[in-house]
């Protein structure tokens, strides 16, 4: 039970990879990539977790103390979520243009690079 969180993160990574390999539509592949990315977020946050402590935000009710979860992994994850949304936008724009030029979004039917 102590490693269940890590195994869920690994499962998301493998399942995302399976989705990319078996996809028949480019948008399906892009969303499966997002699932694989979510696996890395879960792994990062699971590494930084400590049982029975609070979030690393202090205020008038929480005095500064060292009994909080790891803030460094949270900082890495939250910028990554927003930035990978824009990278997904770039991938979707690529898919839209490929569809315009080739008329298909099935990765198996795409012709090789035309000279």
């Amino acid at each position, binding site marked *: 039970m*102590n*490693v*269940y*969180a*890590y*195994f869920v993160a*690994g499962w998301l*990574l*493998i399942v995302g*990879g*399976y989705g990319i*390999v*078996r996809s028949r539509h480019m948008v399906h592949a892009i969303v499966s990539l997002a699932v694989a990315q979510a696996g890395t977020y879960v792994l990062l946050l*699971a*590494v*930084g*977790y*400590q*049982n029975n402590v609070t*979030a*690393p*935000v*202090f*205020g*008038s009710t929480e005095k*500064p*103390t*060292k009994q*909080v*979860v*790891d*803030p*460094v*992994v*949270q*900082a*890495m994850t*939250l*910028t*990554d*979520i*927003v*930035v990978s*949304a*824009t*990278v997904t*936008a*770039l991938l*979707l*724009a*690529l898919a*839209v*243009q490929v569809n*315009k030029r080739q008329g298909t979004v099935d990765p*198996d039917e795409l012709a090789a690079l035309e000279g």
Partner: protein
Amino acid sequence: MSRRVRLVVFLIGGGAVAALLAIAFLSMPHFGRSEHLYRDLAVPAAVKHVTANVVSSVNFDQRGMDTFGEETILIASVVGTAALLRPAKEETERRVPDTGRTLGATRLVGYLMLPVSLVIGLDVVLHGHVTPGGGFQGGVVLATGLHLLYVSGSYPALDRLRPLELFDIVDGVGAATFAAVGLAGIAFAGSFLANVVSFGTFGALFSAGTVPILNVAVGMEVFAGIVAILAKFLDQDITVVKEGDQ
């Protein structure tokens, strides 16, 4: 390669990765342990710089260079998307007919929630150093709040309220502000992105030095970037047609 061959290759490769991950996970420190070396260093450093939200302190104060790189990735993706979704030579942009057939209830909720969302977005950006939030989250809230106009009203209404040239300027100003604060760090303290503004009292609005300024810069940039990306997608769907059709 055919689908079957691809599946076999994935099963072999994926199986190997899964086995390696399993070995690694079983020998990692167990989930929920109490030794976290980075936390023991990061939390006192954040408290020393009078920042109540330690995650914001790590993002903009202790590891500001990483955030600088990430927002550069953001701008590069926006530029790439804008370049990819430009109308081609054989395409033109047509005017959108003003047909709005949304439900009255949808329109009412949209118009009510639009100012609320914008204010909440501004609050999340400005209070990023004292409460959970910051430039990244607040910028996204602002961008999606603006698009409530599209969901509840009509596309021409959104188009009028969204001058794209202004948003491009805001995007650049946000990135330039981040770089300028970094250079001010060199000028006043000798290292890039050093915290050179005076710290205030713990938990107040004016505290944590340069962190609120960087939050506002990143908020502007994320807001403008996401609006620009969504504008390109909306244009492709609604206004761009190949010459010769309609």
